[in-house]
């Protein structure tokens, strides 16, 4: 495992809520794919069964936050200002993946888009657009993951 991959794993390990959901991540250069293996406690609707919409929102939010830390190196953990979540398909009892695209980073605000999918990358199950409060730094911080 590369240094940055190890740092990413260590970061996720340090966040109790990431452990609660069971979030893992993989890096390809500076692009991260967040991975949410299916687990029974993630179910919202037990009849279908379907993953809770809140869990998908939370997973995509976390993907955006971590991708920002990787790309920009943050003096502090970025803060969520607002998110708009679009639910496209039911979250089936399968592994879910998510990738974030940083559309713009200004001095204070970052605009990020995230998509989550399961078996097919071109059939996303949910999408998120969000604004984040950032405190970028030029200096090496705890998290120069890339």
């Amino acid at each position, binding site marked *: 495992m590369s240094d940055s991959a190890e740092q990413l794993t260590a970061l996720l390990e*340090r*966040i*109790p*809520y990431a*452990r*609660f*959901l069971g979030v893992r991540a993989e890096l390809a250069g500076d692009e991260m794919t967040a991975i949410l293996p299916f687990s*029974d*406690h*993630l*179910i*919202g*609707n*037990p*009849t*279908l*069964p*379907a*993953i*809770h*919409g*809140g*869990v998908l*929102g*939370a*997973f995509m*939010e*976390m993907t955006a936050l971590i991708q920002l830390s990787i790309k920009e190196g943050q003096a502090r*953990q970025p*803060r*969520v*200002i*607002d*998110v*708009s*979540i*679009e*639910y496209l*398909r*039911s979250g*089936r*009892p399968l592994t879910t993946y998510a990738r974030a695209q940083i559309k713009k980073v200004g001095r204070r605000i970052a605009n990020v888009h995230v998509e989550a999918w399961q*078996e*097919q990358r*071109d*059939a996303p199950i949910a999408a998120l657009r969000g604004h984040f409060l950032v405190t970028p730094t030029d200096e090496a911080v705890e998290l120069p993951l890339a």
Partner: protein
Amino acid sequence: MSEHLDRMREISGAMNQGSPQARALGFETVSMDHGVAVLRVPYDAKLIGDPDTGVVAGGVVTTLLDHCCGQAVHTAIDNFKFIATLDLRIDYMRAAEPGKDIFARAHCFKVTRNVAFVRAVAYDNDPDDPVASATAAFMLDSSKGKRAGANFKRPKAAS
């Protein structure tokens, strides 16, 4: 009246104990009325998002708001229908205080044939000093034509 209370109890039981994620987070219904639901999530160390401050993860608030909005929809419709979140927009005003339970109050203010519209706030001490606010739209009868266990099968074609 008691019929109404029974139905409210049925909804909160099905949605809190019947939903594994709601159970895992410890969701409880504080009160319910026609079109309105108030829920609580107890503070728990396993839900922390920022280990340096002990603040609960934003994702927990997201799930609480989604769930509370859904519960408000159930109180606003006459018969039980499966519902699914279509769209959820959340504004985060401030971090929740570490150590405090978080509440959400949702109001389903309009139900049409296919869609229900909801507004909600999340707060720790005072609903007038919110942690976050939400606007959501839900599809009604979202599982129409789907049988129990439908999600174990791959959907037909890639639609």
